[in-house]
Structure formats: C-alpha cells, structure tokens
C-alpha cells in the first residue's frame, strides 16, 4: 500500500536535521534497512541544504516543501524551494581537477551517487523542485 508524508519547513539550518530525522523515521517505519536509510538520509540532507541555502537563501519567509513516498517499488523524495532556480547543467563538476579543492559544490554529486534517479523541474508558482527515486 502506497505511503506518503508531506510537510513544510522554514528556511533555516535546523530544518535540514529535522527533514533528515523525519525521513529516517518514515523509512524505518516502512522496514527499510540501514544502508537504504543512509542513502535516503544523505539525499534529504543535501537537497534540503540546497533548498535552504541556495534556493531560498535562508529567507525564513520562504518555505521548503518536502515529501516522502513509497510506492512499493521505489522510495521517492521531493524537495521544493521558492528561489530563483538554477540550471543543473551549469553546476561545475566537482570531480574535475580544477574544482577538486573548491569548498562547495558536491551536494548534487552526492544526491546522484546515492539515488537511482534525480531530476529538477520548475513548478508553477516558481522555485525549483527536485525529485529523487531510490529503487527497492
């Protein structure tokens, strides 16, 4: 039976931990194991970090919308911010030699490494929506 959880968080650092905790509780309740939950946890942290920091730029008047769902075949995470958006292709590859010593820019790489599918879209009403799937 499909399961879903949706919630909204303010754009502050503490929301990252809160979203990760909710993801772990949701996934654990559904019986997922530690490795699966570890991947989910990292993807949630990195995507909510991006939404809070780069999307909403810590503007607490802007919310971060998060959802988790389990279809029985895949675990889906969506995270939406209300920022100005970005083009994912424009994000430099952090593994290129010239970017190796940059302090930031590795979050998207982690999301792609630990989830099976990651895609970004521009929903009506503005902002960015990232949808990530991890197959069971």
């Amino acid at each position, binding site marked *: 039976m499909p399961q879903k959880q949706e919630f909204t968080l303010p754009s502050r*650092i503490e929301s*990252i*931990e809160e979203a990760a905790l909710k993801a772990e509780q949701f996934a654990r309740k559904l019986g997922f194991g530690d490795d699966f939950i*570890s991947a989910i946890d*990292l993807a949630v*942290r*990195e995507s909510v*970090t991006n939404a809070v*920091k780069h999307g909403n730029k810590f503007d607490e008047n802007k919310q971060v919308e998060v959802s988790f769902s389990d279809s029985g075949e895949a675990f889906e995470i969506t995270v939406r911010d209300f920022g100005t958006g970005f083009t994912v292709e424009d994000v430099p590859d*952090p*593994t290129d030699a010239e970017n*190796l*010593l*940059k*302090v*930031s820019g*590795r*979050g998207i*790489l*982690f999301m792609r*490494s630990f989830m099976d599918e990651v895609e970004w879209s521009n929903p009506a009403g503005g902002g960015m929506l990232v949808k990530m799937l991890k197959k069971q």
Partner: protein
Amino acid sequence: MADITIAERQAGDVTILDLSGKVTIGEGSVALRNAIRRLLGEGKNKILMNLAGVGYIDSSGIGELVSSFTAVNKEGGTLKLLKLTQKIQDLLAITKLLTVFDVFDDEAEALSSFE
C-alpha cells in the same frame, strides 16, 4: 548538545585532532574551521585529523575538510587524515578527494610520515 567534539593531542610537533560526532553544515563545520584557525594561529601546522569517531559527514563537512587542507597548506604545513570510516572513505572516493588527501589507518605510521 554539540554536533561535534574536537579533542587535541600533541605527538612531537604533530597535533592530532580527534573528531567525534557530526561534521555537517552549521555548527560542526564551523567548529572544525575554528579549531584549524586556532592551531595555525599558534604556529601548529602539522595536523593529523582522526575521523574514527565521525558518525556522519555531509557535503559541507567534506568541503570543510578541503578548506582545512588548503588553509594548512597555505601556512606551509601539512594536514593528513587518519582512520576514515567506510562512509567517509566512500564519499572521498566519489569526490576524487582520496587523490588529494594523505590517508592512514595506523596512527604510528601516520605520525612517522610527517618526519
């Protein structure tokens, strides 16, 4: 409760930082940055960072390791890593940072590499 605790030991002219907890965006990353700045301010620029107790690190924490590495290099020093957890090793491999950091499993071996 703090996300991270950083204990400092001295082994000859090498300073060992034993990290435990989380190195993540916010408090954990800031604490690490402050610790490295303080050591460099005290002229301690041979640093061995023991990550055995780090249960969690995110991309901001990895970025802070890189920032520490470059800050120490700029001061003519050396920063090396000790006892990576499997998770941290995986993240450093994905980011190709295993090619940047000197990494050791054994403390004595790590210390002798500074000589």
